[in-house]
Each structure stands twice: as C-alpha cells, then as structure tokens.
C-alpha cells in the first residue's frame, strides 16, 4: 500500500498539475446512449492522476438527481432513447448537457438507420460539444473546465 501511495505521490510531483481550485463545483452524470466504449474509456481517465479533474470540484455522481451536467456519449440508439430522456428529466434545474465524441454529434456514425434515433442534439438541448473519436481525456477535461468557467 505504501509503495502504491509513494508511486502516486511521485507521479503527481512530476506531473506538476495546478493546485486545487477553490469554491466551485460541477456534479456530472454520464449516460452512454450507444457508444463503442471508446469515450467511456477516455472519460474514466479524466479522473486518473494525469488529469485529476476532482481538484476543480468536478466529480461523477451516481444519480442524475445529483447532477448539474449530463455527459452523453454515443449515437442515440432506439433502445437507449427512453432511458436517456428519463435521466435528463430526473435532473434538477438548471441543468446542462454535453455531447461527447463524434458519434454523439452525428459525425461518421456506423450502424443501421432503423436502430438509431440520431444525434444527441436531436433528442436533448446540447450546451457543449466535445468532438473526437474518441476525444482524449485532456480534451474532455478542457471542455468541462470551460463549462465550469461559464457556469461559475
């Protein structure tokens, strides 16, 4: 255990990330609306030591009830359409929606038209668009921090 912690501490020192930000926070809920799992894998690393978004008060919360921001990945499939809308409906106001990855933006989507509803934008009002296939953790982090600046 001590070695794990020591390794993480020295990694942190070498990375020289900016110090914690005070007084701001954004509670984030993720919904996979039909991705290839690439955006999820990169989104997971946004919380890893290399990016550590928690230091800015950004955290993934377990329920849309607790969330300020809905992060949606993937092209919306017919089978995820209702679940996506219900997650959005469960969120308190004010709420924001971010579409992550090219599929969510309707770019280069693969699949049969009969199984897909469309872009996230066709289903929900989108405030932030994060392109990429998939976007790298750094790009996701920058976009979310930009939103934090707008929302305060």
């Amino acid at each position: 255990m001590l070695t794990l912690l020591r390794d993480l501490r020295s990694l942190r020192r070498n990375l020289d990330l900016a110090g914690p930000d005070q007084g701001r926070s954004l509670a984030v809920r993720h919904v996979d609306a039909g991705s290839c799992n690439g955006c999820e894998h990169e989104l997971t690393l946004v919380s890893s030591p290399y990016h550590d978004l928690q230091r800015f008060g950004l955290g993934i919360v377990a329920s849309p009830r607790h969330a300020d921001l809905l992060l949606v990945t993937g092209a919306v499939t017919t089978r995820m359409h209702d679940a996506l809308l219900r997650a959005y409906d469960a969120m308190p106001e004010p709420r924001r929606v971010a579409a992550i990855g090219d599929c969510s933006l309707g770019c280069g989507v693969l699949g049969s038209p009969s199984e897909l509803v469309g872009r996230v934008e066709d289903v929900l009002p989108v405030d932030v668009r994060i392109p990429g296939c998939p976007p790298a953790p750094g790009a996701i982090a920058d976009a979310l921090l930009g939103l934090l600046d707008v929302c305060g």
Partner: protein
Amino acid sequence: MTTAYRERIRVALADGWRFAGLHASASGSRVHVLLVRRGETRIETTDVAGHSVPSIVDLANAAGWDEREAHDLHNVGFGGHAPLRPLVTHDPRLDAWTVPVRGHDTYQVAVGPVHAGVIESGHFRFHVVGERILHLDPRLFYKHRGLERAAEGKTIDEGLKYASRACAACAVANGIAYARAAEVVQGLEPTPELSRVRTVLLELERMWSHLNDISAVCAGVGLAAGTNRFAALVERARRLNLQLTGHRFLFGSVRVGGSALQLHADDVAAARREVASIRIAAGRGVRELLFNASFQDRLPDVGIVTHADALRLGTVGPAARAAGVRHDVREHDTHLAYAGFAPVTPARAAGDVQARVEQRTLELEQTFGLLDGLLDGRIAPSTTTRSGSAQSVGVGRVESPRGETSCILERTGDLVERLRLRTGSYANWPSVAHAAANNLLPDFPLINKSFELCYACADR
C-alpha cells in the same frame, strides 16, 4: 436433412470440436454453426424449413444466446429451445425475458441501463433474498447499432470498419479477425512482417486492456490507490499507442491485405523501453496488491465459474483460463507471430475473482515479454501474398483481451453478404450471470469487473 444437422453437431462435439458461434444467413434461409478444434475451423450448415431449425442448445449450451439472437434478428425459430426468450429485442413484459423465480421472500432488484459510474449501458435484473443473489437475468443490446446489417452490401474493404469499430476496447482484435476473414475469401496470406506488426498491435491492445482490468477490480473493492496507480499506467499505454500509430486506441492501424505502419528502428526501440518501464511499474503495483490484505480478502471464493461450468457455458479468454481451461487462440495460430506460445493458467485455477485477477497479471507478463521480443528493429509497410483460391466464406479467429473472437465473412463478388462477429465478451456474458448466482449483491460489481466485458462488442 435437419435431424442430420443435429447429428453432425453431436458427432463433431464428441470428436473434440468446440462450439464457437451460430448465425443465420442474411436472408434467414440458412443457419451456420462454427466449430473449432485447436487451429482448425469448420462450418456446419442447415437449411431453415418453415422458419425453423432444430435447436442445438442441449448439445452446446453456449449456443443459447446465438439462437436467441438469430430468432430476434432473422426470424429463425429453434425447435426444442423453449422458452426461446428475446435477447436483442426488448420485450417490455418482464415474464417474457426473465426466468421466474418464486419462493418465500424473493424480490427483484433492477439495475440499469444507466449505471452509477462511467459504465456502458445494460440492464441487470437480480432475483434476491436479502442480499443473496438467487439468479441474474442480464438484458443487454441497449447499444445495438445494427453494425452487421449495416455492413451488408459494402465492399469487403469497407466492411472492416463495421467490425473493428464495434468496440474501441477490442478494435484491433475485431479488426484483425475481420481482416483475416477477408484475406481468406480473397486467397491471401500475410507476410511474416505483416504477422509481426499485427501481433504488436494486438499485444499493445492487451497491455492497456489488462492494466485497465486490474484498475477496475481495484475500483470494485474500493481501493482507490490501486485504481489510480493502474489508471496512470493505462494512460501511459495509450500514449504509447498514440506515439506509435497516431491513435490512442490504435484505430486505423489494421487494414485488409497489408499494413501501412512504418516506424524507424529508434522509435521502435523507444517503444520497447517504455514497455519495459511500464512492466516494472505494473510489477510493483501487482506486488503491492498481493500483499494488501483488505484487497485480497475480497477476492477468493467469489463469483465462481468452475472448470466444468466453463466448458459447458463456452467461457473463453482469461475467465476460462482462470478456471483451468487452457484455450487460447494464440497457441495454434499460424497467421500471427505467436510461434511457441503456450497459454498460462494460475496455480489455483479456482475460477473465482482471485483467479481471474491473478490470470490478468500472468497474461500481462506474457504480453510484456511478447512485446519485448517483437519490438526489435524497424517496422516497415507490409503486405500479403496470394496463396490459394478465393473462397465464398472466410473465418478469422483472434484472441482478444477478453477471449476468443471469431469473424465470419460471407461474400457475393466483392461485396459483404453477411458479417458475423462473435467476440469474447459475447461468449462470456452468460458466464457473468452464472457467476453472480449465490453471491452477495454488493459483490456483483467486483464479479462483473473481474470479467470486465464490453457491452459494445456484445451488442454491436
């Protein structure tokens, strides 16, 4: 004809062949069964008469999902498979797709499709008494994008992206399985250099994937230090992918009939040093986990898939090997650079979470070793040679990080007539449900993480 079909399957299975997939043809007029024996493959076919063929699920339990899928997507009935529950189709009636569980004090816990963490979408219906899971009905295919159907009518080269992009985590494995199938139909054989570069890509994918799996198991027991230590190594592995191929998930690096990847000897040597450095860091981390009592206490005797269960359910990959089933496509492969490869299994192959974690650490060491040997000298663009006659059907098999993946390509001229991708995740989801029974509900995340299957490449 159709009874002969069951008999052919029965004899083949008795003869040492293993079930590796079943699918309906594009029109739903024929059913094909893929059988494998070491490096050999064979396909048994039967005509669909009156929208139905006899089920083989009693002969090969692993065909359960395949038959349900063929019923949902191609309207083929399977006589004797009753009830033939929907799999890809989402029937809103609970009793249509769940197993009835009756008794004193039983109740259901519904989880998903939206989960509490950053996880793909899927629904789990737990039947429990108190915290004890009696039975689990998983309902996946929320992410069904109809990729196989969409590939039909595309050129054989275009078809690649539908297979490889089914899943980012297995993009290389699925891509190589497709490329191999496409080369078989065109009568092409990879040159040694092409075999080498594909093996490098496949093992780079396994490296980040297994590191990610260890991180995920740590998350499953709430050991944040382990989760973050291994997540940091995943980040390094993806950065290495980016340096070598221009993409963190190696997208675009697999092609049909050749490889365009070109790397200077110095860059290859630098990659080899980075792999060696990740190997040392991962080894330190694994040792720490080994001596962390609160972590280790959670792992034994949880989520068991016994050796017999693994054979019956058709479990593949690390999950099968952790139960002592030494199947690994790499062992008998002749199209990639795996000469002399022998699968490993843990000393205590109990098929529980502990064995699956240990299995990942053993395989990770193999992968580091393979990469160390392969990352030697420059990587040049490579191609295939014409070796045989063109075929109408091709099969490609690859050991993905999650297990045996097969791709079947049927063609009409230069176009894809039917594409079937059966991934390690698809093969193993029924094993996850089986492993969950008799365990505590709060242990399910840990059990699930110890398989760490993709939803995307099961759903397609």
